[in-house]
């Protein structure tokens, strides 16, 4: 639990004829991670991309294309269906696994014809879309000409002159007229429109070519149209009819697409999944080495799964294999975390930073213990805690069922919500001060009052957080010390870890000397230890080494953020309550406005504080706690494993 799972590395030699059955046997269980065999050794060669791999890749691309096309035009779910699918996760329908020969047969019998049909449909839909946008553009031009109220056949060339129609943005109208007037061979005939100005002018063709760059600069667009023989209104009607025909054709194709989806999508998904598995097998092969008749592979297997690995290998090869355990370095070993169901939820938080190295300490357990406490302390409000817990429980058992990582996140937040309620009771927070006097009576600590010792509870809270920080950081230093000693890095152990203990002990002795002035040794011992620590810091890192003390102090002070977050949750909630009370005093709508403000205000405060309470305890772990012992440079164990989503294979 405090270290990643132990791994074993195996070199396995087997007959090349058994390779497919071996890969088939391992792909359904996360048992082993293949590593590249050294093929530079004499007599061993690597697997090149085979015809089979090309075949698999080729058809996989086709299957994916068919799936994405059929899904792109599938029926849009209604709002009710969308809400239902958010809360109730339907498992994907399962289809039976198919054999390799059946896979080939189905590829030829229906994937190929279906792909060809899909390509034709896709092309036609593309053509329709292009044609529709061209017609829409033409309609826009005709509308602009209709606004000019001129016969379209007049817009043409007359010897060296031409009548041109175009569009210009209203803010460039003056500039346009100016450019046109700059040549004596042009005459503005008409200018209409408000949002977009449509202009009609007569111009000498050479003069037009001369001023065109200037016109282009101010965004002038010439309108060119094909139906000059028709009146604009007739042409527009024709275009609308054409667009309607195209839409009908598109609908027909989409209808056909939905029929195909209903009939074939499941089957294609099966083929896609099977082809993906085959492709992964082919890729794994490229890590292997081979001789004429045998194949060699190297794999890491979690030590606890060794017997299962042997059993599967034995069954797949009918006992025809040779296996030997290989030695490996710490750097090459993959990392697999191993925890009980509670701490497993916190693994994803650690992965956000990086996995531990193979032989180093796995801090998931420490995160799992302190993180929910800090989360609850930072939030500490019964009202928010209950709402948040209810929301997280609903999400946990509905939406989060989709994936394991979402389940872990919601579990972590549920733990946080529980501690929020707990600390809310301790500090008497219920949506800030909405709980009134009765909540205050229930509270153990009122942060805005004084403790029996005469000190403010707020100050005691800050002090407690510094104490928590000091303990937490000292624990991190201890872990770092253990790591340094394990790595035989004694200099670091002494100058980077032990030095803090020496300094803290010296300070404690010195402080104790004020309590027990009769014991002189305390003061002397304290001074001696402080000087020793400073000398060690100076010797290891020069004058800058002394900065480590302020850095450490900063780290301890950083834990006061938890208290700050707790007070800010309360203060913002209190402000919302005060403002809502002011709104209640407004006549007629006051009550409604106040309630709306109260609900939205508290909802926003809940969201902000969930985010803060999630991030800040995490930061305390990542930045302060980890800085003394954790690198997060481990490589994740990536097993040769393909969880089936669509197909299921019945175990024989």
């Amino acid at each position, binding site marked *: 639990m405090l270290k990643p799972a132990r791994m074993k590395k195996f070199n396995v030699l087997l007959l090349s004829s058994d390779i497919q059955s071996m890969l088939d046997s391992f792909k359904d269980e996360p048992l082993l991670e293949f590593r590249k065999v050294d093929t530079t050794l004499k007599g061993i060669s690597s697997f090149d991309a085979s015809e089979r791999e090309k075949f698999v890749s080729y058809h996989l691309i086709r299957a994916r294309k068919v799936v994405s096309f059929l899904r792109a035009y599938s029926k849009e779910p209604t709002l009710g269906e969308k809400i239902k699918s958010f809360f109730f996760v339907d498992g994907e329908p399962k289809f039976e696994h198919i054999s390799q020969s059946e896979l080939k047969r189905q590829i030829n019998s229906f994937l190929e014809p279906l792909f060809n049909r899909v390509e034709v449909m896709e092309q036609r839909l593309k053509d329709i879309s292009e044609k529709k946008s061209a017609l829409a553009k033409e309609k826009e031009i005709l509308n602009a000409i209709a606004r000019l109220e001129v016969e379209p056949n007049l817009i043409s060339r007359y010897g060296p002159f031409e009548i041109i129609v175009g569009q210009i943005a209203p803010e460039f109208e003056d500039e346009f007229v100016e450019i046109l007037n700059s040549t004596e061979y042009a005459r503005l005939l008409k200018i209409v429109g408000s949002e977009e100005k449509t202009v009609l002018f007569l111009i000498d063709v050479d003069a037009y070519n001369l001023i065109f760059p200037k016109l282009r600069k101010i965004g002038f667009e010439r309108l060119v149209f094909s139906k000059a023989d028709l009146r604009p209104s007739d042409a527009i009607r024709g275009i609308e009819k054409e667009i309607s025909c195209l839409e009908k054709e598109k609908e027909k194709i989409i209808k056909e697409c939905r029929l195909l989806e209903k009939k074939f999508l499941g089957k294609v998904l099966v083929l896609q999944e099977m082809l993906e598995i085959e492709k992964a097998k082919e890729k794994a092969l490229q890590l292997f080495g081979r001789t004429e008749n045998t194949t060699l592979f190297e794999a890491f297997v979690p030590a606890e799964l060794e017997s299962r690995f042997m059993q599967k290998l034995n069954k797949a090869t009918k006992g025809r294999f040779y296996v030997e355990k290989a030695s490996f370095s710490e750097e090459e070993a993959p990392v697999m975390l191993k925890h009980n169901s509670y701490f497993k939820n916190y693994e994803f*938080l650690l*992965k*956000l*930073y*990086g996995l531990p190295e193979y032989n180093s300490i796995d801090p998931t357990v420490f995160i799992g213990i302190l993180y929910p406490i800090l989360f609850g302390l930072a939030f500490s409000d019964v009202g928010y805690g209950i709402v948040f817990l209810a929301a997280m429980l609903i999400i946990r058992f509905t939406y989060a069922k989709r994936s394991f990582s979402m389940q872990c996140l919601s579990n972590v937040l549920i733990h946080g919500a529980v501690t929020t309620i707990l600390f809310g009771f301790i500090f008497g927070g219920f949506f800030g001060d909405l709980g009134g006097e009765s909540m205050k009576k229930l509270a153990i600590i009122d942060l805005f009052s004084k403790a029996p010792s005469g000190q*403010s509870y*707020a*100050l005691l809270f*800050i002090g407690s957080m510094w104490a928590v920080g000091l303990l937490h950081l000292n624990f991190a230093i201890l872990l770092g010390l253990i790591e340094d000693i394990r790595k035989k890095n004694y200099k670091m152990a002494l100058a980077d870890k032990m030095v803090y203990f020496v300094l803290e002990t010296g300070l404690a002795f010195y402080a104790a000397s004020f309590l027990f002035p009769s014991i002189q040794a305390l003061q002397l011992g304290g001074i001696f230890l402080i000087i020793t620590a400073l000398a060690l810091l100076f010797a290891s890192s020069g004058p800058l080494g002394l900065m480590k003390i302020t850095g450490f102090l900063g780290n301890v*002070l*950083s834990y*006061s*953020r938890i*208290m*700050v977050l707790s*007070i*800010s949750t309360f203060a913002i909630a209190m402000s919302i309550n005060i403002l809502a009370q002011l709104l209640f005093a407004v006549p007629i709508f006051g009550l409604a406005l106040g309630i709306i403000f109260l609900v939205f205000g508290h909802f926003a405060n809940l969201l902000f504080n969930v985010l803060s309470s999630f*991030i*800040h305890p*995490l*930061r305390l772990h*990542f*930045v302060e706690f980890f800085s003394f012992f954790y690198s997060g440079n481990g490589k994740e164990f990536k097993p040769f494993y393909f969880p089936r989503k669509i197909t299921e294979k019945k175990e024989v």
Partner: protein
Amino acid sequence: MADPATMNALGLMMVGAGLAVGIAAAGSGLGQGITAAAAVGGVAEKDYSFGKMLVLTAISETQAIYGFVIAILIIFVVASGAGAF
């Protein structure tokens, strides 16, 4: 009711507390804006670094928190000592 001199002193302490948290928060906000912009770029390039980036953006909040701590100390230690609380 305390005498005007004490009230003035308390008022100044409250202004000091407000400035401590306000200026620190403004600085943090500026810093966080810069970090967050860089973090968004980083995540766009390497999406697996989201966790680290999220925490990096929270680092610049530290100064606001220190400001808040100072404000709390002013209110509960200094002002409390002067008999305000």
